[in-house]
């Protein structure tokens, strides 16, 4: 009983706000404590691969989870898509030119545009895909700076060093940060579907499954919605 009373969850950085809520609700319901390890999906993948003692891994994509499942490090049966994220355009308060549309990024007063590193962060990949699809990537790519993860991307606009950034909606949804999003962008990049899975080596398998189920339950999905995610 004692063992079941606590689990450790590795969660992608974009989940920082939403999963903190999730944890509270889950503990209230089940009495099981949850500890979170936040990091970029890439870093967390490496940690899980090398036996970090986490019970569940919630990534910012599906690829990482299915990859780990393929290596038999994550329980195949437990893999679930639990949220779908989207990207938004964030102007810097201090920017000379306030962007509203992707096309505004071409403006000569927009000197620096921040996105997350497409190689390591799913949200960065989505941002790049969208800009390519919109046909403006080649015109602005010299103004683009890659941040390590989606968190640091936002820091660049917040400190006014980037004139605009493309970040995960969940990071700005409900905050006083101004941002823009349009339905039409959905066609520009593959949906950012986020998957989770229970770690094979977990000693708290049962509790981990409980948490996974809670995230995909109606209660859990409501919390995700509250933070700006779509339900997959």
């Amino acid at each position: 009983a004692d063992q079941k009373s606590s689990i450790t969850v590795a969660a992608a950085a974009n989940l920082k706000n939403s999963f903190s809520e999730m944890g509270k609700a889950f503990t209230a319901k089940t009495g099981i404590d949850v500890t979170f390890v936040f990091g970029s999906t890439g870093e967390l993948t490496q940690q899980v691969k090398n036996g970090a003692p986490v019970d569940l891994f919630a990534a910012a994509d599906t690829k990482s989870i299915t990859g780990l499942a393929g290596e038999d490090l994550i329980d195949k049966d437990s893999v679930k898509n639990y949220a779908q994220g989207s990207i938004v355009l964030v102007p810097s308060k201090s920017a000379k030119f306030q962007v509203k549309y992707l096309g505004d990024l071409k403006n000569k007063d927009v000197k620096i545009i921040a996105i997350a590193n497409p190689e390591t962060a799913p949200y960065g990949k989505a941002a790049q895909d969208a800009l390519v699809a919109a046909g403006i990537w080649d015109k602005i790519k010299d103004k683009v700076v890659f941040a390590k993860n989606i968190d640091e991307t936002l820091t660049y606009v917040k400190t006014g060093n980037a004139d605009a950034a493309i970040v995960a909606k969940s990071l700005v949804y409900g905050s006083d940060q101004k941002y823009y999003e349009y339905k039409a962008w959905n066609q520009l990049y593959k949906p950012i579907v986020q998957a989770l899975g229970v770690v094979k080596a977990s000693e708290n398998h049962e509790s981990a499954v409980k948490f996974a189920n809670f995230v995909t339950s109606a209660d859990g999905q409501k919390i995700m919605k509250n933070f700006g995610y779509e339900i997959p």
Partner: protein
Amino acid sequence: MTDLDFRPLLLSLKVSTLATFFIILIGTPIGFVLARAKFKGKSILDSLFTLPLVLPPTVLGYYLLVAIGRQSPLGKLLENQFGINLVFTWQAAVIAAFFTSFPLLVRSAKAAFAAIDPNMENAARTLGRSELSIFFTVTIPLAWKGLMAGVVLAFARALGDFGTTMMVAGNIPGKTQTMPIAIYDAVIAGNTGQANVLVLVMTLTAIIIIIVLNTVEQKY
């Protein structure tokens, strides 16, 4: 002002003190050998000891993770024999701090030992003292200032390590979340106020410790 969580500070102090302790224990003799012994390949060995400084901390952390993780021979041994998993424990943070910081002590120690007049040790030899006791009563005191400079550097670096610790020990509040990680979280989360408070606490702590170490430096 937010209610301050002192656990990261205490953890950081524990981790960096222990790491520095092991660094002194292992790095001092290595520095001595590098300063005194003459053997083939010394120069390469010497530069190998500096490598941890050259690798990006996260990458160093990655290699450590691979080396001590569950999939590694060491990790398997520990898990099967003692049921221990090092990854994501505060002990892992000590290991991370150890590897990032020990080049600093080794180099300082090497320079300090090389500067000693060999006649000092020769005099002690003719007075009949054993090599070991000469090392502790003559060599170490004469190298003291340089050694302490290395200790200060190593301790400071251990206190500030972020990337390596993050990789092998994770970021588990109350368990492996050290001060640098807490500060990083606060900065990135945009809690500038909290971040500044944490940085202030960290800075004051570091200044006090460095001043204390500087005083110890004056011992000889």
